[in-house]
């Protein structure tokens, strides 16, 4: 263990604390509506007082904050005002769907965006470079919800080859019961050897993944290109060329490595970007993840649910950043 990792861990905890403070502040901005939610239009004074006490709203702000932090760290996200079930349970049921969507999108973005960016950098100012940059410029300007709706229109409405929305065919889900292992339907159905279910899950994934990936792909490709060009301009690249290393080895063995290490941070940020954007994509495709759940909760002022989802998404992002830091540490000898 090194100072670096301990430092990162310490920082992570500190920032988590800050995140809790912010969600606390946000959740206390309009507590009135929550009381209303629970009691209907015309509550009595006593009813209000009772609910306020139940929610801890009668205590001082610092006390409330400490209580809130304590509760949250113990996984007490409160009860959904809408479903009357614990928020944590609601989230636990839906979170794997969100992760599955984001995970497949991230794989697509990394596996397609980085090679495209590298190739554009290696053939700077060639036709393929301009093509890649144009696609990237178009992708970055397309609103994700429009991409999603165009996909639906073309592949579902006109061609009828892909399911419009949802995560799995309802009938298939009834026919094939596969046990939850990872929470990813694709993986679980495969593990259970149920091909029809697997195929259905896969087909349902295609459009949401594409919609979620397009703008991230544009960003990753653009940044990869820039970093690769920067890496190719380093002085040590000239040394290696001067000493007769093959272009292959110089480009992929040395320049790519120098570009990939800072790219780790970018990949981490892309993960966060897609977590946020998944809210929109889940909404369009009626994907049963926590993003869509949150949208519904906002509209109905179910603030424990909203804050729960916010915390879970923010923490996932923090954990992803920690993983990025660890990879960074493993890849960059200067940090050791």
């Amino acid at each position, binding site marked *: 263990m090194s100072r670096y990792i301990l430092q990162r861990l310490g920082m992570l905890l500190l920032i988590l604390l800050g995140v809790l403070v912010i969600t606390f502040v946000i959740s206390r901005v309009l507590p009135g509506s929550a009381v209303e939610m629970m009691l209907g239009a015309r509550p009595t004074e006593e009813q209000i007082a009772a609910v306020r006490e139940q929610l801890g709203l009668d205590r001082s702000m610092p006390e409330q904050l400490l209580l809130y932090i304590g509760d949250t760290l113990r996984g007490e996200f409160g009860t959904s005002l809408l479903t009357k079930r614990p928020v944590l349970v609601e989230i636990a049921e839906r979170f794997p769907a969100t992760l599955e969507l984001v995970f497949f999108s991230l794989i697509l973005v990394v596996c397609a965006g980085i090679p495209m960016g590298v190739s554009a950098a290696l053939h700077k100012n060639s036709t393929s470079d301009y093509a890649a940059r144009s696609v990237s410029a178009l992708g970055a300007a397309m609103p994700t919800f429009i991409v999603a709706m165009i996909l639906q229109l073309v592949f579902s409405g006109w061609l009828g080859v892909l399911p419009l929305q949802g995560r799995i065919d309802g009938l298939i889900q009834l026919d094939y019961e596969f046990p939850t292992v990872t929470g990813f339907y694709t993986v679980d159905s495969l593990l259970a050897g149920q091909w029809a279910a697997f195929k259905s899950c896969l087909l349902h994934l295609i459009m949401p993944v594409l919609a979620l990936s397009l703008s991230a792909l544009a960003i990753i490709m653009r940044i990869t290109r820039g970093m690769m060009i920067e890496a190719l301009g*380093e*002085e*040590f690249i*000239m*040394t*290696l*060329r*001067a*000493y*007769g*290393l*093959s272009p292959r*080895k110089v480009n992929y*063995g*040395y320049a790519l*490595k*120098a570009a990939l*290490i800072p790219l780790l941070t970018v990949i981490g940020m892309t993960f966060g970007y897609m977590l946020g954007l998944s809210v929109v994509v889940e909404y369009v495709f009626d994907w049963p993840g926590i993003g869509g759940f949150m949208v519904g909760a906002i509209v109905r002022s179910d603030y424990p649910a909203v804050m729960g989802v916010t915390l879970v998404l923010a923490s996932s992002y923090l954990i992803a950043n920690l993983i990025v830091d660890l990879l960074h540490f493993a*890849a*960059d*000898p*200067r940090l050791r």
Partner: protein
Amino acid sequence: MTAPLLEINDLRVGFRNRRAVVQVLHGVSLDIRPGEIVGLVGESGSGKSTTPLAMLGLLPANAVIGGQARFENRTLDIANPAATRKILGGRASLIFQQPLKAFSPYATFGRQLVDAISAQTGMSRTDAGKVALAALEDVQMPDPEGAMARYPHQVSGGQAQRVMIALALSCNPKLLVADEPTTALDVTVQAQVLHLIRELAKSRGIGVLFITHDLGVVAELCDRVVVLYAGRVCETAPVAGLFHHPQHRYTRALLGSMPHLGSAQAFETIPGSAPSPAALPSGCAFHPRCAAATERCRTELPQMVTTEAGRFACWNPVGSDKGRVV
């Protein structure tokens, strides 16, 4: 006299930018014999850092290159960097100014040495490792095995420069091009590195082109000197002759302005500063700064004159008395 190892004639280099081509070298000729250390001296804008890159085929794609070159009696297509690199690769090695930037920070010295050696010689990685280790021993690297496992950020600039020299020597080159290899180093370390280069060049008969702005280093190290000004050679001569009897007015002025121990009196100074390659004066490019400039210097490009002591291009050399301003 032995035949030259490398001979360059009328080397011209320009860089294309959006507007035009900026000519940096206007016909530089020089030669290096086996075992000889030739100093290439110049100030900023003189083209001294472009010359070695052109020679080794390392200029970027926007360079426009012309001229003739011969290496070991083979003609080089110097206008074609890739072809030049192919012929010179393995026979000519380069040492950079900033040794710590010349190595990838993400790989050990061992890996980078082995990659380079096996690329140049076609050896197996095991054999290349042995060669690398031997080369590190040759440059008196303390703890050579340990150095193989180290990353650039773990060593000092002086040690990194030793590794750079080891890399340069590991391929048994005939020619070593050193681009200001000691500028970033402290004086005591500079003295070590200069000594090392001299010993290795002499014991192995390697021709060295040593680029520097520091005349003191030239005096310590070189056998012969080529002085560049504004992309042209203004004088070339054996080192003792050049320092004691400079011919070109610029060489003379440069020597006079050089601070050195034991010179506690006022320096001679050269007024103004070196011209930018994009805006060269007419005639002799040095004339606006030259105290002895005549009308001819302002209009006519001086011709190269060969004497027994060397060659120079000056209309009004130090040896001639007319027009001399003291």
